[in-house]
C-alpha cells in the first residue's frame, strides 16, 4: 500500500465505522459488531503505520495533491503513531468494557458512533501538519467529547458538561486567536514551513512569536489541565459512566500534552529561554496540586481524576527539561499513563458495577470477595505510582535522570516527592476498598443473579487485556524506550520532517 493510503486509514476507518453505525441506528447489536470490527481495523492500521514509519522515519501526504505549503498536509512520525497506537489499544479495551458495562439507553442514543468519531478526532490531531487543521481536528474531537459527556443527561453529567463546554469553548477561541497571530506574523500555517521560518535568524517578526506561543500555551493548557487551568477536570471527568469517562480521561488530556510537545519543539522555539523556566514552574505546581487534591478526596473516581492532573505535570516536566532523554521520558510516560489510567478507571467501573457506588466509605472487603480484581488493581496502581519493575518506573527513571543531567534538581525532587504521595493515595484506595472489613450497611443489597455474575466476570476481560500491555511495557521496556528515544530525536531534529513535508511528492 502506498504511504498516502496508509496515512488516511486511521482517519477513514473510524469515519466509515461511525457512518455505518449511524445507518444501523435502530440495531444496537449490529452497531456493536461494526464498532468492534472498526476498533480491530484501527489497531491494524496503527500497527501498519508504525511499521512503515519505522522504515521511513516520517511519512507525509498532501490531500488533493496541492503542493505542500498550500494544501492540507498529513504527517506521521514516531510520536504521532505511538499516540494513535495507544489510542487504538485503549479504544479496543473500552469498547469491550462497554458491551456489558454500559446501559442500553446510552448505546441506543449513539454511544458507538460518537466514540468512533472521537477516535477519528484523536488521529486527526496526531496526523495533521497544519496549524489551522489542528484547531479543526480539536473541534471535531471536542464536540464528540461534549456529546459523550452529556449522553444520558443525569444531573451530575449535565453540570459537568456545562463546565466542560464553556471552558473548552474559551480555550478553542484562544487557539484560533493564536493561529490568527501566527498567520499574520509569518504568512504560513503549514507546520513544516513555519518551523523553517522561525529558525531564520533575522526574521523581523520573530520577537512577536512569544505572544502567539502564550496563546497556544493557555489554550492547550486548558485542554490538558495544567496548573492554574485544571478546575474543570475533576468536575467533568467523574460524571459520565465508566465506559465513557475511562476513554476520555485516559486519552483526551494527553492529546493536549501531545500538541504542546509538538508545537514547542517544532514552531515555538525562538523564546525557549523564557518558556522553559515557565513550563518547569507550571509542571511542578501541576504535579503537587494534582496529588494534594487526590489525597483529599473520598471517592474512587475523583481520586483518579485528580491524579490525571498530577501526571500531566510529569509529561510537562519532560518538555521543560528539553533534552532528548527528557522528551523520550515524556513520550514513554504518556503512553504508559494512557494505558494505566484507563485501566484504573475500568477497575473502578468493575467495582461500581457490582456495588453500585464509588464512595470509599461505602466500599470494603473486596480483597476477600474479588481477589483477582484486587490483584489487577494493585498492579495498575503500583505501576501508576512508579514502583519497579512496572511501567511507571521506567518513565519516571528517564525523566529523573534527564532532570539530574540538566541540573534541574528542584523539579526532580518535587517529582520524586509527588511519587510518594501518589503511592499514599493509591494505598488509601487499597485499604478502603479492598482491605477494610465490609461496612455494616449492606450496599448493593440486591441479590446477584447468575446472569449478573457472568456479566461482572466478563468485565474483567478488558482490564486484563490492558494489564497485559502494561506488564509488557514494564517488564520488557526496551523496545518502547527505543521507540520513545527515536520519537524524541525526530522532535529535536526536524530536518527530516520538513524535508518530507515540503518535498512535494
Amino acid at each position, binding site marked *: 500500500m502506498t504511504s498516502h493510503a496508509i496515512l488516511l486509514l486511521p482517519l477513514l476507518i473510524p469515519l466509515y465505522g461511525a457512518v455505518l453505525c449511524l445507518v444501523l441506528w435502530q440495531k444496537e447489536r449490529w452497531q456493536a459488531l461494526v464498532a468492534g470490527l472498526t476498533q480491530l481495523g484501527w489497531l491494524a492500521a496503527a500497527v501498519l503505520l508504525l511499521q512503515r514509519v519505522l522504515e521511513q522515519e516520517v511519512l507525509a501526504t498532501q490531500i488533493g495533491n496541492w503542493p505542500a505549503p498550500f494544501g492540507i498536509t498529513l504527517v506521521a512520525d514516531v510520536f504521532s503513531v505511538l499516540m494513535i497506537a495507544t489510542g487504538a489499544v485503549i479504544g479496543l479495551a473500552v469498547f469491550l468494557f462497554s458491551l456489558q458495562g454500559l446501559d442500553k439507553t446510552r448505546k441506543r442514543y449513539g454511544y458507538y458512533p460518537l466514540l468512533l468519531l472521537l477516535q477519528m478526532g484523536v488521529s486527526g490531531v496526531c496526523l495533521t501538519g497544519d496549524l489551522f487543521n489542528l484547531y479543526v481536528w480539536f473541534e471535531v474531537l471536542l*464536540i464528540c467529547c*461534549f456529546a459523550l459527556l452529556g449522553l444520558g443527561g443525569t444531573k451530575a453529567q*449535565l453540570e459537568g458538561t*456545562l463546565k466542560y*463546554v*464553556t471552558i473548552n469553548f*474559551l480555550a478553542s477561541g484562544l487557539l484560533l486567536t493564536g493561529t*490568527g497571530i501566527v*498567520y499574520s506574523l509569518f504568512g504560513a500555517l503549514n507546520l513544516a514551513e513555519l518551523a523553517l521560518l522561525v529558525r531564520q535568524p533575522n526574521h523581523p517578526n520573530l520577537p512577536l512569536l512569544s505572544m502567539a506561543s502564550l496563546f497556544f500555551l493557555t489554550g492547550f493548557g486548558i485542554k490538558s489541565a495544567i496548573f492554574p487551568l485544571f478546575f474543570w477536570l475533576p468536575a467533568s471527568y467523574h460524571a459520565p459512566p465508566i465506559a465513557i469517562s475511562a476513554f476520555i480521561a485516559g486519552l483526551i488530556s494527553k492529546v493536549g500534552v501531545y500538541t504542546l510537545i509538538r508545537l514547542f519543539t517544532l514552531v515555538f522555539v525562538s523564546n525557549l529561554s523564557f518558556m522553559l523556566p515557565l513550563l518547569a514552574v507550571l509542571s511542578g505546581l501541576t504535579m503537587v496540586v494534582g496529588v494534594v487534591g487526590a489525597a483529599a478526596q473520598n471517592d474512587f473516581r475523583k481520586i483518579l481524576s485528580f491524579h490525571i492532573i498530577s501526571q500531566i505535570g510529569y509529561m510537562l516536566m519532560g518538555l521543560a527539561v528539553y533534552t532528548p532523554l527528557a522528551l523520550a521520558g515524556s513520550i514513554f510516560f504518556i503512553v504508559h499513563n494512557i494505558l494505566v489510567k484507563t485501566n484504573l478507571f475500568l477497575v473502578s467501573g468493575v467495582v461500581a458495577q457490582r456495588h453500585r457506588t464509588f464512595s470509599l466509605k461505602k466500599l470494603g472487603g473486596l480483597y476477600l470477595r474479588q481477589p483477582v480484581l484486587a490483584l489487577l488493581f494493585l498492579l495498575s496502581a503500583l505501576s501508576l505510582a512508579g514502583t519497579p519493575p512496572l511501567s511507571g518506573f521506567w518513565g519516571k527513571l528517564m525523566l529523573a535522570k534527564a532532570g539530574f543531567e540538566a541540573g534541574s534538581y528542584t523539579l526532580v525532587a518535587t517529582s520524586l516527592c509527588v511519587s510518594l504521595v501518589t503511592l499514599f493515595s493509591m494505598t488509601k484506595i487499597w485499604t478502603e476498598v479492598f482491605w477494610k472489613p465490609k461496612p455494616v450497611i449492606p450496599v448493593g443489597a440486591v441479590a446477584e443473579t447468575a446472569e449478573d455474575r457472568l456479566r461482572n466476570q466478563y468485565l474483567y476481560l478488558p482490564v486484563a487485556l490492558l494489564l497485559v500491555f502494561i506488564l509488557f511495557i514494564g517488564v520488557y521496556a526496551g523496545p518502547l524506550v527505543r521507540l520513545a528515544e527515536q520519537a524524541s530525536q525526530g522532535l529535536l531534529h526536524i530536518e527530516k520532517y520538513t524535508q518530507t513535508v515540503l518535498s512535494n511528492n
Partner: protein
Amino acid sequence: MEILLPFMIGILFAVSLYFILHRHLFKLILGLILFGLATNLFLFVIGGITRSSIAIINKDATVAAEPYADPVPQALLLTAIVIGFGIQAFAIVLIRRVYQTFKSNNLDDFRQDKEPEP
C-alpha cells in the same frame, strides 16, 4: 474606520467575558456567542484589511496583481464561523436541557452532593 475595529474587538471580548462570568444561564449563552464573534472578528482584522482589491487573476496574467486581499484569513474565518456555530448550537441545546432538568437559571443551584450513578 480600520482604527475602530481593534477597539470593537476589545469591547466584544470584554463584554463576552463579563457575561460568561455571570451566574445566569441566558447570559452564559450570550457570552459564548459574543466570544465566538470577537474571535472571528479578530481573525478577520489581523489578516490585514485590503480594500477593493480582490484576489482574482486576470485572464492574461499568471499571478494576481498587487495589492490584493489575502484570501487565506477569509477561508479560515469561514471555517471558524461554521465550527463556532455548531458548538454554539450544541451549547444552547445543552443549556436548555440543563434548565429543564434543574428548573433554575442560576448556575449556583447546580451544585449537588449526590454521587453520580455508576
